[in-house]
């Protein structure tokens, strides 16, 4: 019953769930929309415990290591393109076939 009390807070809306599915390119059914709404609400509610910390002026940590300027020489190397094409599900000639755009 924990879920229901959290639900009352409306962390996320059905419309947002649909938009997330569209952005993530994951098709979900009407019934699943509901399920996602409930599960995500509960999890997001938990994540919101971070709201209570003062993070003003704290730099984010995107990388835990101090490395900078990792680069390589501009030197081309031989590749084996044909072996990459062998695992392509649908080809047309040497092209990779994708579904239509419009």
């Amino acid at each position, binding site marked *: 019953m924990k879920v229901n009390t959290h639900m009352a807070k409306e962390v996320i809306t059905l419309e947002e769930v649909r938009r997330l599915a569209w952005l993530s390119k994951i098709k979900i059914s009407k019934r699943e929309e509901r399920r996602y709404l409930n599960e995500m609400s509960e999890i997001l509610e938990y994540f919101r*415990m971070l709201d209570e910390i003062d993070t003003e002026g704290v730099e984010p940590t995107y990388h835990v290591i101090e490395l900078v300027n990792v680069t390589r020489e501009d030197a081309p190397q031989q590749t084996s393109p044909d072996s990459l094409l062998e695992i392509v*599900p649908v080809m047309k000639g040497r092209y990779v076939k994708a579904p239509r755009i419009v």
Partner: protein
Amino acid sequence: MPRILELPASEIVRKVKVQEISVEEYISECFERIRTADPKIHAFLTLTEDYALMRAREIDSRIRRGEKVGSLAGVAVAVKDNICTMGVRTTCASKMLESFIPIYDATVIERLKAQDAVIVGKTNMDEFAMGSSTEQSAFGPTLNPYDLERVPGGSSGGSAASVASFEATVSLGSDTGGSVRCPASFCGVVGLKPTYGLVSRYGLIAFANSLEQISPIGRTVADVATVMDCISGHDSRDSTSVNTGPTSLRSHLIEDVSGIRLGVPKELFGEGTEEAVSKGVWNAINRLIGLGATCEEVSLHSLKYALASYYIIAMSEASSNLARYDGLRYGFRLEDDDCDWSEAYSRNRREGFGPEVKRRIMLGTYALSAGYYNQYYLRAQRVRTLIRQELSRVFKNFDLLASPTMPILPYRLGEKLRDPLEMYMCDVDTVTANLAGIPAVSIPCSSHQGLPIGVQFMAPPFREDLLIRVSYTLEKNLELDLKPAV
């Protein structure tokens, strides 16, 4: 079971080098064992028997000719199925990659091969490493060798279970938020998550890039050290790989903890910690005190926020990493003549991904999206800074932090599947090391009703040597009564 399967890696290497046994014999025994044990525990998704035997014979013939062989000559290694192996199916335990055969080896695989290790197969895991029980595999769960009704932990459940049940001598897993330490703890084996950047991630199929490291699993501390010394060190194909040579952890297999200062964070013995676990861990700590270590309880307030921070970051990165699975260049693809690309992608991803993966992609997309980025993703990365700062303060006074690896004992299959958040909570003690990029080890320290309990040690960056020394000392001084049920 033949005794050779119980030997540590270093003994196997010694015996094959002096031709006391042949690699072929030993590898054949491994597969015999797999044929007996694996139908019960389901640790493997793919076996590479023909290849392994061919490699074994090749190494044997080099030894007979008196040629030099590598530091892992003949040793049977099981590899988590999110580490790319050239010519061998690498599925991430996902329908999406069910028939994906990489045309390249991960750097760690190249290094293992260069040292003449023999890869025996690819192990089961939670799909795309998202889970803590190996129940989220698209190909069915792995079972705990100590109790076939319980989970082996995860996500590297297959790698831990295969070693625990003597199907392989050592294995590789990956640890994003505890994915090696958790199953090591549940399966009574040793798992070491290295400092971020110490082991190349090239060829590791990404779940959360800024958190994860490929990590060795073994039945002994020495085996884990041996594998680390083989796979660690700089790789120019990974921009986050630190510029150091391989580790020499084998030289730190020293039975001495005198003067080692242990900190015990209260937050890692939180309310969800089972008493048996707590007792087992304290028992180990007390043992170390008896051997000359000192110990003090500490409080790290920011750890309370580690789990939320970890999951937000991991899901955010995952939502982006897993975008590439659209069915065009490789992997699962449905018929799509009747629809446009967007619809086709959405159907493919609906069918190809399991529920936990989809849930995390959706949540990660949310945490990064306009309007929520600051509140979730950015805030989590800032909290990560606070956690790192607090840890580096505490490491001024302590050499290592000790805690349970898992707050609970291995639980029954399905027990936590219905409530994702409850499952996430199990990672509460392990995620901190990933957020901070510091090394951490889990080693068996006790048991309760025949189920293993693991203790976790965390160290400052690049102090794997301390972890190895303390774990080794503990291993030598604990009498554990652990016997797998298979």
